[in-house]
């Protein structure tokens, strides 16, 4: 009876394997997003402030497609001109290098006016701040420094901006002020790429006595997620992004779009979570579902991964790759994350079986048998898969370590080591004794 059940189970598994392979598209009509070019305009619309410009410039720098490059630069140009950062403007102009016609050249009259205005404003701010200082009105001094911070930030002097924001700390009177100071410091630090500062100020903000409002705490979670991502701590990053509440909405566009939360969080979770965690913390997470709805591809690929449709999952990933590489925060980690996800998929695939036909498995992962063999070899060497490859028949056999034999081996080894160590120790003791008695006898003579 049991045998029959087993047999049925096995047969089901087998049909599953086939469906992993070539049957995927025909069975489940799902729109697979194509690897078509990033819609830069739509992308840029998700962000605001400095990060928008920086992201556009990053795209221009990273992509090989000239028309895309120029499109990004054109939008960056328009965006910079809305602000007051003449230095960045110069850079953008230099990058465009006249390729977009006379309308996108250096605009000296605009630069001069902005610079002139900036001088005046700076003078005014200085006078104000000095007046506040003489009057010793705490709140006003704080405002003065804060204004200075804003001023420098707008003009792209990030280090100065950071200093001024941090200076307001001594004049903060309520916990709200402190949170405000922290948010500013975090924003500037993210722009500067100083993620240790980010972590510091997040913990300061979280220590605040009053409960943080939902939006602020969501912002802090995102920033923490980014900091962990930057430090390659993908599991922690995934946790932070998953904890982000949907109240975030479009309130943090100067740093991150809600779509990014889904992408970053989803990928980090796939790369670092085990199956149960994936189920409880990602798929069953109602909060996070709100984010996932914004990026259906990520939602689908997580679902595919969980339901073991690896081919389709990996296809989604492959399609997204080009665009993810254009992301200012993610691009460094794309390869690592993808490798980890792929390895995880390989491990999970082999896990339930006693033997796996490599040809079918290669099919399921859309790769060649030899390529798969190499991948499996690496995983076995790292002891991530307990199995051995029958390269002749192209079958992978699970290997169950014999506890008894291993114990015997270890015991004999440990015994040998103990034996050797003790004898060496006795010898050293003998030598030391000799040396000491020599010294003593020398002293006596």
């Amino acid at each position, binding site marked *: 009876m049991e045998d029959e059940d087993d047999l049925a189970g096995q047969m089901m598994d087998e049909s599953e394997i086939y469906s992993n392979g070539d049957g995927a598209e025909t069975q489940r009509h799902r729109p697979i997003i194509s690897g078509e070019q990033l819609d830069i305009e739509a992308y840029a619309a998700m962000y605001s402030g400095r990060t928008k410009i920086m992201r556009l410039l990053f795209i221009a720098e990273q992509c090989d497609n000239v028309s895309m490059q120029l499109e990004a630069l054109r939008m960056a140009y328009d965006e910079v001109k809305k602000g007051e950062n003449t230095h960045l403007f110069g850079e953008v102009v230099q990058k465009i290098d006249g390729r977009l016609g006379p309308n996108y050249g250096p605009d000296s009259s605009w630069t001069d006016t902005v610079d002139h205005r900036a001088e005046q404003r700076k003078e005014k701010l200085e006078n104000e701040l000095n007046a506040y200082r003489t009057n010793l009105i705490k709140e006003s001094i704080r405002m003065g420094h804060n204004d200075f911070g804003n001023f420098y930030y707008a003009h792209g002097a990030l280090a100065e901006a950071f200093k001024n924001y941090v200076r307001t700390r001594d004049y903060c009177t309520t916990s709200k002020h402190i949170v405000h100071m922290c948010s500013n410091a975090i924003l500037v630090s993210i722009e500067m790429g100083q993620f240790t500062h980010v972590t510091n100020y997040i913990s300061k903000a979280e220590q605040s006595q009053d409960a943080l409002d939902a939006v602020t705490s969501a912002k802090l979670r995102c920033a923490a997620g980014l900091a962990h991502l930057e430090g390659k701590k993908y599991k922690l990053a995934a946790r932070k992004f998953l904890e982000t509440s949907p109240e975030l909405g479009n309130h943090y566009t100067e740093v991150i779009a809600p779509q990014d939360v889904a992408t970053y969080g989803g990928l980090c979770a796939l790369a670092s979570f085990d199956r149960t965690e994936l189920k409880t913390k990602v798929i069953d997470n109602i909060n996070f579902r709100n984010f996932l709805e914004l990026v259906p591809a990520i939602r689908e690929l997580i679902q595919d991964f969980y339901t073991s449709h690896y081919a389709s999952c990996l296809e989604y990933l492959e399609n997204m790759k080009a665009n993810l590489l254009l992301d200012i925060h993610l691009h460094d980690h794309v390869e690592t994350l993808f490798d980890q996800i792929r390895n995880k998929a390989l491990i999970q695939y082999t896990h339930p079986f006693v033997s796996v036909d490599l040809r079918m498995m290669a099919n399921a992962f859309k790769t060649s048998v030899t390529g798969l063999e190499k991948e499996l070899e690496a995983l076995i060497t790292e002891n991530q898969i307990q199995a051995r490859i029958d390269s002749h028949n192209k079958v992978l056999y699970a290997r169950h370590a014999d506890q008894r034999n291993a114990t015997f081996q270890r015991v004999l080894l440990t015994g040998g080591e103990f034996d050797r160590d003790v004898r060496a120790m006795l010898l*050293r003791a003998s030598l030391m004794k000799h040396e000491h008695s020599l010294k003593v006898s020398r002293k006596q003579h």
Partner: protein
Amino acid sequence: MGGGMNLNMNSAESLVAQILGLSGGSAKDLAHLHHLLKQSDDLLLSSDSPPASLLSQLDPSVHSLGYLYILEVCTSGPISKEQSGEVALLIARFIEACKADQICLAPDKFISVCKRFKDQVLLVEAPIRGVAPMLTAVRKLQTSSEQLTALHSDFLLLCLLAKCYKTGLSVLEDYIYEVDQPRDFFLYCYYGGMICIGQKQFHKALELLHNVVTAPMSAVNAIAVEAYKKYILVSLIHFGQFSTSFPKYTSSVAQRNLKNFSQPYLDLANSYSTGKISELESCVQTNKEKFETDYNLGLVKQVVSSMYKRNIQRLTQTYLTLSLQDIANTVQLKSSKEAEMHVLQMIQDGEIYATINQKDGMVRFFEDPEQYKSCQMIEHIDSSIQRVMVLSKKLSTMEEQMSCDPLYLSKVGRERHRYDFEDLDSAPHKFNI
């Protein structure tokens, strides 16, 4: 009584008479004879009759102590190369015949005679003639098998030069615990290590070399440096890796200096860790001269071939079957034929468990067939347990002895006092216990 005797001691002849009379007797007689002999060095040197003629009147197996004293005088002068063979033969016969209990009364004399013997054997370039007598000498001089004598290192050197590694191993199998002269110990371990390397007993070789490297030393010495170099190479051959960190009981002198003298070897270990044959080969090429001048090139070559083995062994962890061609490709061998030779050799040496199917060029790997169920295995485990128990008993005896040792106690006591007071007061104090 001593004075009266001295009057009679006016000639070498009467000394011989004393020897003849006292040798066969009790321990008391022997002690008396020893006393006489100690005073008669000058007499023997200034004697008209050549000491050699005196020897002919004595039987080395009966009058060992007296024979030893006269023999020592005989061989102390310059010896021409023609005489060397003869002198060596004379000493060899004495070593074979002498009584252990008599020569142990004058170990220094015996050691000096044996060392001269070694010199003569080397002078006539026949180290093999010295191996057997020297082994006898070591055994006769030893009061217990745990004692390291001053002759151990000379014996091992002769074994090395005569390539009698197996004879050397017989001495190395004894566990040594009592050491008098650090220099003897260093040489014993170094030569012993080389003999074990010659017999491919790398495990034992590592143990001996490790002893040299980690021995307490107050100044860096050439033996330790050479031992460290070989230690690196043998580690690579045996374990496939080398850890550059020293155990914490290593003397600070060794920790600070040994690496500076062995850079090419450390580079080699580094390139070994990449697992790539090509990198290892290029490292060998760049440092070839240094290895050659250190006489280590042969070992270095063994390091290279061990990497092939290591890489093939790694494959057995991953594959059940693999074609010879794939093996050749993965471990960077030139042809499948060469891979076959390597695999075959490794099967023969018991380093992997596999069968080769020549028809389709496939190798099938197996797990270690040892099931730890055989009587032999149980016996082996049992003997290991017994060995460890004996050792552990020895350890506690040693500890007991140590904690009663006045020298040790005075040292510890002094240090403790100094320490306590320094904590309280920075003014220097002197204590005498």
